[in-house]
C-alpha cells in the first residue's frame, strides 16, 4: 500500500507540474494584459506603463517569468495579486470557506440522493418512476447552472417570497450565534439546490446503469438460481460492485464542482472564489489566476489519490494487482 501510494503521489506531482506549465502558458499567451487595466485608459503615459510593466516583471520572456514563478512557488509563496494588491494566498483563503461549504455539501447531497434514485430506478427498470426520472435527469443535465439558479430565484424568492434572493447573510439584521447560522443556512438553500439539481443527473445515471449492468451478470443469475432473496443478493453482491463507478465519479466531480460552482456563486452573490476567479480572468491577474489553478490542480490530485485509496479498500482486486 505504501509503495502504491508513493507511486501515486509522484504521478500526482508530475500532473500538477504539467498542468501548471500549460496554465501558465495559456494565461500569458491570451490576448490582453493587466497593465492596461492597472494604468487605466484615461491618460496613461508611456513611462507609467513601462514602470508598471517593469514593476510586475512582465517584460521578461515568458519562460523566464515561468521559472521565476516556480521559484517563488517553491518558497511557498503564491505571489501577489496585480489587481487586488494583496497576497494571492490571502485572497483565496478568505473565499475558500464559502465555496467549500457550497460545493462539498452540494456534492454529498447529490451523491446520496442521485445514487439512491438511480438504484431505485434500476431495480424498477421500465417502471413509470424509471421513465420519468430518466427524462428529468436529462432535463437537469442539459440545464445551465446559472439559468437554473435564476429560475429558482424567480420562483422561490420573487414569486413565493419564501427565501432570500441572494447573498450569504441578511444585511438588514445583525444576527449572531445560532441566529447567524440559521441565516446562513437560509441563504444557502437556493444555491445549494442549484448545485444539487445540476449534479444529481450524473450520479443517478451512473448508479442506475451500473446496477442494471451488475444485475445482468451471470453470477447474479446463479445466485438467484440458488433461491437467495433479491434483497440479500442486492445488498451483498450487487451494491458493492455497482458502487465502484460512483466513487470514481465522486472524486472527479469534487474537483469539477469546486471550480464549477463559480458561476452559481456569481448568480447568488455567494462570497466564494467564483467572483475572484472571474475577475482574475477578465483582468488578466496572472498570479491570482495561477494561484487558483494551482489550488484546483492540487485538490484534483488529492481527490484522485483518495479515490484510489477508497477504491482499493472496497475492491480487493486492486490491492492484489498492485501487490503483484
Amino acid at each position, binding site marked *: 500500500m505504501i509503495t502504491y501510494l508513493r507511486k501515486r503521489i509522484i504521478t500526482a506531482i508530475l500532473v500538477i507540474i504539467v498542468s501548471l506549465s500549460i496554465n501558465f502558458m495559456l494565461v500569458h499567451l491570451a490576448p*490582453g494584459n493587466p497593465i492596461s487595466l492597472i494604468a*487605466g485608459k484615461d*491618460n496613461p*503615459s508611456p513611462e507609467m506603463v513601462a514602470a508598471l510593466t517593469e514593476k510586475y516583471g512582465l517584460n521578461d520572456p515568458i519562460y523566464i517569468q515561468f521559472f521565476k514563478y516556480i521559484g517563488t512557488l517553491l518558497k511557498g509563496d503564491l505571489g501577489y495579486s496585480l489587481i487586488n*494588491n494583496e497576497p494571492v494566498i490571502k485572497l483565496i483563503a478568505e473565499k475558500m470557506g464559502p465555496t467549500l461549504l457550497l460545493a462539498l455539501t452540494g456534492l454529498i447531497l447529490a451523491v446520496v440522493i442521485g445514487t439512491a434514485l438511480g438504484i431505485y430506478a434500476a431495480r424498477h427498470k421500465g417502471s413509470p418512476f424509471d421513465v420519468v426520472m430518466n427524462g428529468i435527469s436529462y432535463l437537469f443535465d442539459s440545464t445551465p447552472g446559472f439559468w437554473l439558479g435564476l429560475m429558482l430565484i424567480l420562483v422561490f424568492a*420573487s414569486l413565493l417570497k419564501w427565501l432570500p434572493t*441572494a447573498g450569504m447573510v441578511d*444585511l438588514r439584521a445583525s444576527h449572531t450565534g445560532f441566529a447567524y447560522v440559521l441565516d446562513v443556512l437560509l441563504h444557502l438553500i437556493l444555491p445549494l439546490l442549484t448545485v444539487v439539481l445540476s449534479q444529481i443527473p450524473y450520479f443517478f445515471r451512473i448508479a442506475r446503469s451500473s446496477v442494471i449492468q451488475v444485475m445482468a451478470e451471470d453470477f447474479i443469475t446463479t445466485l438467484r438460481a440458488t433461491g437467495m432473496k433479491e434483497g440479500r443478493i442486492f445488498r451483498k453482491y450487487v451494491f458493492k460492485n455497482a458502487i465502484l463507478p460512483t466513487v470514481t465519479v465522486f472524486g472527479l466531480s469534487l474537483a469539477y464542482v469546486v471550480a464549477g460552482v463559480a458561476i452559481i456563486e*456569481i448568480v447568488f*452573490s455567494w462570497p466564494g472564489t467564483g467572483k475572484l476567479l472571474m475577475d482574475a480572468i477578465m483582468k488578466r491577474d496572472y498570479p491570482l489566476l495561477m494561484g487558483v489553478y494551482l489550488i484546483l490542480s492540487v485538490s484534483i490530485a488529492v481527490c484522485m489519490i483518495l479515490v484510489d485509496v477508497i477504491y482499493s479498500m472496497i475492491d480487493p482486486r486492486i490491492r492484489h494487482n498492485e501487490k503483484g
Partner: protein
Amino acid sequence: MKKLASMVCVLLLSVGLLAGCGGAPNDSSAAPAGGTAETGPKKGGTIIVGLNGDPTTYNPDFKGDDNGFAIYQNIFNRLYKINNKQEIVPDLAESYALSSDGKELTFHLHKNVKWHDGKPFSSADVKFTYDTIIKEKGQISGSLSSIQEITTPDDNTVVFKLKQNDSALLGYLSWYGCFIMPKHLYEGTDWGTNPANQKPVGTGPFKFVEHQKGVSITLERNDEYWGDVPYLDRVVFSIMSDSNTATQALYNGQLDFLGIEPPLAEAERFMSDPQLKAGKQNWPSRFHVAFNVSEGPFANLKLREAVAYGINRDEVIKKALKGVGLSAKTAMTPLYQWALNSTDVYPDRNVEKAKKLMEDAGYKADSKGMYLTATLDVFNSEPFPDIATVLKDNLKDIGIDVKINVMEGAAWDEKVWNNKNYEFTLLSGYQGPDPGGLYGRFASEGTMNIMKYSNPKLDENLKKGAALVKEEERAPFYKEAQKLLVADKPMVPIAEQIGVVPYQAYIMGAPTSPEAIQKTGFTEFTYVWINK
C-alpha cells in the same frame, strides 16, 4: 456598468449608471404618502446598496476602481465635486479664484474640518495628495500636467501654480481619482500598500466600519461631519455581481438602491413599478462608431460619410438600447451647452446618398448589392453587441457587409485600444468634465485617440479653447473644433448615454432627486432618508 471609450469606459458608464442621474431631476416618483416635506427628513436607519464587486483598495487616488468610486464619495471629499447635474460645485474648498493670466488657481478651504480619526485637516493634506498623485503616477496624473507647483500660504489656502492656463483642470480636480488623502497616515509610506488602504480615514459624511470580503461594506454616519450631517445611521453596500440577481433583489426589497448597471430590458419596469423610483441622468458619454482613419477602408472619408448616412439612430435606440438613450447628432455631448455647435451636425439616414458616396469612392456593387465587407470589433458587454447587430442591418442597406467580431474586454483592449489594429469599432465613454474632454479623444496627441486621427487645425482650436478663461471666449474655438470633426468624421455619434438608477419608493433625498441633485456627487448618500 461602469464608461470611457473602452472597457474602462464601460466601467465608467457603470459608475454613471450606478451613480446615475443628473441632467434633469426627473426621478419617476411613486412615493407613498407620509413623512414628506411637511414632516421633514427622518434621522436614522440603514440602506442597502448593490455593488458589483469588492473594491480592491480604499486608496481613492491610486488607480481606477469602479467598485471603490461609489464608496470613496461617501468617505472622502474633493476640493470641488461634480454633482448629478454635471456641474462643478464646492466640496472641501468653499471657493476658488483664478488669477487674470489664468496661471494661479487659489482654493479657500473650509475651516474646522477633521479627519475621521480626529486629526485636523489642513491645506498640507491637499498639497500632499496632489504631489503624491503626480509623483506616484496616480490614475489622473496624466490630466495634471499643467501644474507646476502647489503652495500652502496658510492652513486654509492652497495655490496651484500652473505652467499655462488650463480651463479643464478644475473639472479634473472635481472628478475621479482626486480625493484628498490624510497626509499624517500616508506620508513616508508606500501609498500602494499603506494599511489605511484597507481601513480608510477620510473627511467625508460617512465613516468606514468594515469590509466583509465578497459580502458587504459598511459605513456609518460621521456625526462630526463639517458639512450637512447625513440622516442615515448606516450605508451598507451589498456585493451583487450579477445584474439580473441584483434586479430581483431590488424587486424583492433586499436592496434599497440597485447600485449596479441594470439590464436595459428592465428600464421600463423601473419607471412603471409603483414600489420603485427611477432616477435618470444624461451622462457626458455617448455611443459612437470610431473609425481607423489611417489605414483600411475607412481611411477614405467618403466611406465614413457613407456610414454616417447609413446609421438609423432611432432604430439603434429602440432595439439595442431598449429606448434608454437620446439621438446624438452633434460632435460633442450637448451637456456643455455653452460650447455646443448645433449648426454643424451629422446627417440623418439617407440610403441613396450613402450608396452614391460608396460609388464615388470607387466601389462597385457585387451581385448581392454589396460594395464592401468590413469588420466591426466590439467588446462583449451590453449593449455593444446589440448595437452592432442593428448597425450591421443598417449598413447592409447601403451595401456594406459588416462582419461583427465580438471580443472579450481584455482582448479588445489589446487589439483595438493598444494596437489600433481594426477597421471600425463601437465606443462609449466619458467626454467631460468640460469641453476640454474632446482633446483626449480627438487631438493628434490625445491619449484616447484610437482613431489615429490628426488634424492640426483641430488641435490648435482645442488648445486655444483650454488656454482661455471665460466661457464666451472659449466657446468659438470648441464650436470650430466640432465643425472640423463633423467634416472629417473620425467618428459618428449614435446616442447620448442615459443612466437609469432605480431605488425603492420610500427612499428620499437620493443623489438624483430634486432635493439632492445639486448638492451631492454621483453616489453620495448624505441627503438620503427613509420615509417609512
